[in-house]
């Protein structure tokens, strides 16, 4: 199939990329841009491991054709820390023991970022509910939810 040129702004950098139409955003990020922090697990929308923020919203890179992301702004895990400074969510995940094998972590972090952008002071229940599309087999989720709440507290203190 014919390749087409698309423009993606990924973590603040504009990339001109040539892709075949069947290529997913997940493949472009991982294989073309070498941003392997975005994972692929189920490939079917069921696990959230491939979550990235597209124009600020949490979406599934495994279910997104790269073509449909043309012109959009994409944030992957590699772009969450700014100028070497970890995002409060990253700090909290590390400190609270929210990361075991780490394979779900990029998706968890980006979904959590979307949550805190939308709702800076969520309750425990709201965090659980927002993360319900992100599966983790290691942690039992307890420390993940703790970490999101800790990060929210930190950010509300102005620690941003």
């Amino acid at each position, binding site marked *: *199939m014919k390749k087409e040129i698309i423009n993606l702004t990924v973590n603040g950098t504009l990339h001109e990329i040539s892709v075949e139409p069947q290529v997913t955003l997940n493949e472009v990020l991982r294989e073309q841009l070498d941003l392997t922090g975005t994972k692929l697990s189920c490939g079917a*929308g069921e696990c959230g491991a491939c979550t990235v923020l597209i124009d600020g919203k949490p*979406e599934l890179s495994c279910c997104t054709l790269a073509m*449909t992301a043309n012109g959009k702004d994409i944030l992957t895990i590699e772009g969450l820390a700014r100028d070497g400074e970890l995002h409060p969510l990253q700090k909290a995940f590390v400190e609270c023991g929210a990361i075991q094998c780490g394979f779900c972590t990029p998706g968890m972090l980006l979904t959590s970022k979307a949550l805190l952008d939308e709702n800076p002071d969520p309750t425990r229940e709201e965090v659980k509910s927002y993360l319900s599309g992100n599966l983790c087999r290691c942690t039992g989720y307890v420390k993940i939810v703790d970490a999101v709440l800790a990060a929210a507290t930190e950010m509300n203190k102005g620690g941003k």
Partner: protein
Amino acid sequence: MFRTLKPFGYFEPKTIEEAIGALSVHGAKAKVLAGGVDLVPRLRKRQAHPEYMINIQQIEELDGIIKETAEGLRIGALASLRSIELSPLVKKNYFVLHEAIHSIASIQVKTQGTAVGNLCVATPASDVAPALLVLDAKFRIVGPSGEKTVPAENFYLGVGQTVLQPNEIITEILLPKPQAKTGGAFLKLVRTAADIAKVNAAATLTMADGACKEARIAVGSVATTVLRVKKAEGVLKEQKLDLKVIETAARAAAEEVKPISDLRSTAEYRKETTRVLVKRALEKALERAKA
């Protein structure tokens, strides 16, 4: 088994006419693409084999706007499930739809997936469809011969089958104005919270002078399509609603459904819990209608 998608042609029409034109040329070989949450995994699993993908997201006449009209509410075809769930208009006047979408777990699926896409998949387990059935929704459909409006109730033909032709697209969902003293509720049984329904039920009740003026009940995952259980509705009409009447209606609903056993549940369980869910949905709807 696969991780990549098979090659296909891709087209991004700018107008509805262009889209319909492309769909008409390629017929069943083409597929409309909206959020892709359903379609892309099916391509990966080799369960769909389109040669052309028609992405409708760039069509200028289509949008995701949710707004009040003289007749009621209008939801654009590109509206994501999440935007409908969060819409204050929906929460206020069509709570059963909010509740139905709220029951869908994954934020990402709801952010990316559209309600129209959900309907077009035509799974009997849709949570959106029962809510739209009891809200008496209509779908605006555009095809080569123009526009038509189809009531949600007449939309489904079977598993994965609707009245929609391969060269037609849905442009809007239309909901009539809610009547006074109407309450609705949606309930769902699942294996884990992030799951499609084993059984779901939506109900709306409109009360007048202490009696039931109108009752609508729809259930999902218990037949080849989501369906209205009209005998059960009939039990309620013009009745003063007490627990006994509600229980009779719920039993009637369970009689009307024809569930199967599959991975998610058994026919037996589905029949029994249809009764339970319908009863509970009616009780809740009644409470809300009175409020």
